[in-house]
């Protein structure tokens, strides 16, 4: 910055000879020379500089793009674009039933404690089990189907004497029938069509009649009509059906109705006498994944058949719609998936007419975000520069104008501020704001403040140097001699002379601030989602996958930053040359 002090010498307006001297003109003729205002001169020199004009054009484009673009853009910066896509989704699950399901006879109860005892007995291979004083007996109809009965003791044999108990009366020939069965070591006998069972209790033998209590089966009954559910789940129906199935019979009757059985792979279908399908019986449970979904019995049948045949795919037609399902086995479970039309976020969509730069990882329009991001990036740049200039002019101005001890003290203060390392402090601030989860909008303002407060020292130095040299110059002595007020001296004579330098350093500084803001955004410490800035848009490129495959997500933003900063640097350079022709750049 050693060249700063002599950058702007000129308070004397420069004179440019526009017309050749004419014979008719006199030396003191006002038309002879046309004097241009200093501003006009600067402007003329500026537009003569090609690079500066290019820079200006870039900046005009960027401002139009960032400030007018969002108004014209059909999308908003936080709009997420979604589209219908198809996705394989789990639709239903199937499993071979391994848990016994109980159907309890009317007016009976079969509690959890009873069930536990039953399972124990089943595991041990016993046929009877006791719960308290109750004796239960069960028979296995087929693999996985058990009929459970409770025994009602009516007689007891102790040391060869058969005595009725519980006040029951023994039918004729009971004792004889019992003796015969006992001799043949059987555990039951039939008398007059009633089955009596013999069980051991301590040293006594107990003879009892039986009555049905419950039915335990691995099979699942799916009614074709929901209104039949109650009948189908009734004990009596189950008993009739199970017995028929166990015997492999093709018909059975229940409640004066005849039912036909048809045996398929993995499933037995019960057809009622009108030829309608009545219920499906199988040991494979098929459930919809979504509780609101209803699976028809036909659908379940199709899936069961496919599972039985170890197929991986199956087709099912319902309501004239054919859908393909895949069956995926994981351990004991089968997952049935189908292509489901789903509302999907259109991530990483390639550029198209609707979205000239595609969609980003959140399904947002990259072009629109670039416009809004430019707005924030430029705005941050300007606000920070204004803060810097405001603090810098005040401190530098005071320091330069008053000089002496004030100057020394303020300059030491500037040195001190200058020594504070920039990035560490900003990173600490950023991570604190992350921890406190500051609102994205508030974050931008805080960021502007921090950048401004950390960056004003350069401006202060420039202003001080300039004012120090200006106040020694003749025109200031003259101003003092005319006796005008101090404030007028400062604002009318000193400040305008500092302006050119301020404009130059502010323009050049803008580029640097935009880079800083973008860098912070890139590191994730600056502007946060859902708001956009150019830096935070490029942030996605830190993901190697995005960087490799989706150029349109990060290259445009980078180019915009590059061009904008380049524009500011060109213009800043051009302005410096224009203000100070002696420097010759």
């Amino acid at each position: 910055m050693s060249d700063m002090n002599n950058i702007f010498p000129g308070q004397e307006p420069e004179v440019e000879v526009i017309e050749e001297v004419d014979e008719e003109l006199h030396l003191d003729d006002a038309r002879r020379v046309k004097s241009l205002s200093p501003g006009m001169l600067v402007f003329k020199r500026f537009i003569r500089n090609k690079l500066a004009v290019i820079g200006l054009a870039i900046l005009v484009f960027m401002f139009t793009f960032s400030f007018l673009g969002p108004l014209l853009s059909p999308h908003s910066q936080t709009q997420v674009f979604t589209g219908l896509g198809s996705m394989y989704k789990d639709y239903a699950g199937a499993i071979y039933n391994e848990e016994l399901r109980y159907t309890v006879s009317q007016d009976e109860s079969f509690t959890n404690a009873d069930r536990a005892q039953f399972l124990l007995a089943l595991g041990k291979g016993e046929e009877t089990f006791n719960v308290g004083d109750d004796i239960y007996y069960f028979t296995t109809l087929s693999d996985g189907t058990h009929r459970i009965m409770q025994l009602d003791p009516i007689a007891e044999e102790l040391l060869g004497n058969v005595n009725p108990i519980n006040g029951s009366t023994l039918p004729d020939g009971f004792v004889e029938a019992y003796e015969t069965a006992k001799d043949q070591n059987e555990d039951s006998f039939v008398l007059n069509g009633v089955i009596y069972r013999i069980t051991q209790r301590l040293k006594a033998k107990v003879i009892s009649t039986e009555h049905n209590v419950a039915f335990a089966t691995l099979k699942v009954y799916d009614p074709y009509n929901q209104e039949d559910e109650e009948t189908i789940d009734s004990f009596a129906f189950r008993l009739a059906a199970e017995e028929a199935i166990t015997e492999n019979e093709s018909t059975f009757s229940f409640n004066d109705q005849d039912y036909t059985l048809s045996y398929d792979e993995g499933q037995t279908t019960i057809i009622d006498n009108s030829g309608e399908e009545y219920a499906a019986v199988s040991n494979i449970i098929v459930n919809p994944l979504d509780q609101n979904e209803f699976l028809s019995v036909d659908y379940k049948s199709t899936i069961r058949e496919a599972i039985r045949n170890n197929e991986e795919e199956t087709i099912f037609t319902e309501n004239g719609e054919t859908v393909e399902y895949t069956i995926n086995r994981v351990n004991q479970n089968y997952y049935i998936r189908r292509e489901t039309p789903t509302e999907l976020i259109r991530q990483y969509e390639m550029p198209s007419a609707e979205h000239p730069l595609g969609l980003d990882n959140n399904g947002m329009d990259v072009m629109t975000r670039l416009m809004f991001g430019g707005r924030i990036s430029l705005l941050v740049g300007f606000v920070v520069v204004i803060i810097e200039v405001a603090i810098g002019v005040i401190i530098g101005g005071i320091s330069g104008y008053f000089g002496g001890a004030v100057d020394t003290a303020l300059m030491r203060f500037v040195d001190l501020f200058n020594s504070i390392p920039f990035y560490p402090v900003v990173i600490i601030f950023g991570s604190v704001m992350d921890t406190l989860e500051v609102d994205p909008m508030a974050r931008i303002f805080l960021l502007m403040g921090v950048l401004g407060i950390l960056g004003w020292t350069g401006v202060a130095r420039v202003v001080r140097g300039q004012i120090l040299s200006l106040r020694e110059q003749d025109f200031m002595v003259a101003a003092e001699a005319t006796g005008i007020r101090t404030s007028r001296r400062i604002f009318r004579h000193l400040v305008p002379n500092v302006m050119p330098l301020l404009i130059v350093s502010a323009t050049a500084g803008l580029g640097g601030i935009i880079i800083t803001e973008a860098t912070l955004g890139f590191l994730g410490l600056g502007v946060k989602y859902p708001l956009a800035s150019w830096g935070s848009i490029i942030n996605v490129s830190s993901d190697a996958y995005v960087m490799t495959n989706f150029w349109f997500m990060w290259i445009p933003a980078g180019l915009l930053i590059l061009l904008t900063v380049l524009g500011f640097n060109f213009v800043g350079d051009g302005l410096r040359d224009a203000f100070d022709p002696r420097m010759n750049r």
Partner: protein
Amino acid sequence: MKNFIIRRVLLGIFIVFFGALIIYSIIRSLPTSYVEQIARQRASSPLSTKTYQEWLDQLNEVYRLNIGIIPGYFGWLGNAIRGDFGESWNFGVPVTQKFSEVVWYSVIINIVTFIVQMVISIPLGILAARKQYSKTDYAITVFALAGISLPTFFLATILKYVFSIKLGWFDLYGLTGRFYSSMTPWQQIWDIAYHMVLPIITLMMLSIGGLMRYTRTNMLEVLHSDYIRTARAKGLSEKVVINKHAFRNTLIPLVSYMSYLIPSMFGGVLITETLYQIPGIGYISYQAMIRGDIPFAMFYTTFLIILTQVSLLIADIMYAMVDPRVRAN
């Protein structure tokens, strides 16, 4: 000269003292919930052997958060002068130990960058100044401005995209390759050097522009001065004029410019190292700071302040060494 150096050193000490005080105040003024959160986080970490309260007490004790800022600062300063900067929360080792482990990577990268940068930009800057307003000058100026205008992360990402992904010449990240541990020492050195190529290119491209413009401006100033006109007038060859008369005088501001590079040399180049995940001091302190590692942040910032002051001092001394006029005063 002696007096000047003494004044300069005293000023440096003053700035380091108050600069560290400012940083300390900033860290102390952070919302207390921040420290509590850190303590909670540390306590819930599976590696932690301390409870939340113990962590909180430790934080309060180490940072004297229970006493005022000024006494707390003097306590910290007392330890720091004795070389005790505490233990890094993030790395679990003394801060200074971690620092000495990693600083050399940064130093190597910066020294190489520095040499390459000078070899390229000084001749180009002189060339641009000699042929002012020529096509060469415009090209060099545009190139230099483009270098200044390029954000580090964008340049690094483009380099990675071209050289790592498209061409596959370099790894995307890191300082060592996958088979580093099974290599001979020489291969290991080669591997590290290979991984430093892209970071060095990045740094070089970014800094070349500034130095080039600086050289050009100074050279122009020198070329327009009277003694150059005199040298030309007395019939010296252009070569002698440029090399003997002009270039030597251009060196004066360059020397001071170079000493400003010292802070980044030892302070690391935070952004570039982070982008390439080179575990130099820049990347390590970045990691420490975003995780709220206060001991490391305190150490690193103080270190940078000291470094800046030292570099300013060196700049002044160097200035006096190369310019007899300064020495005479």
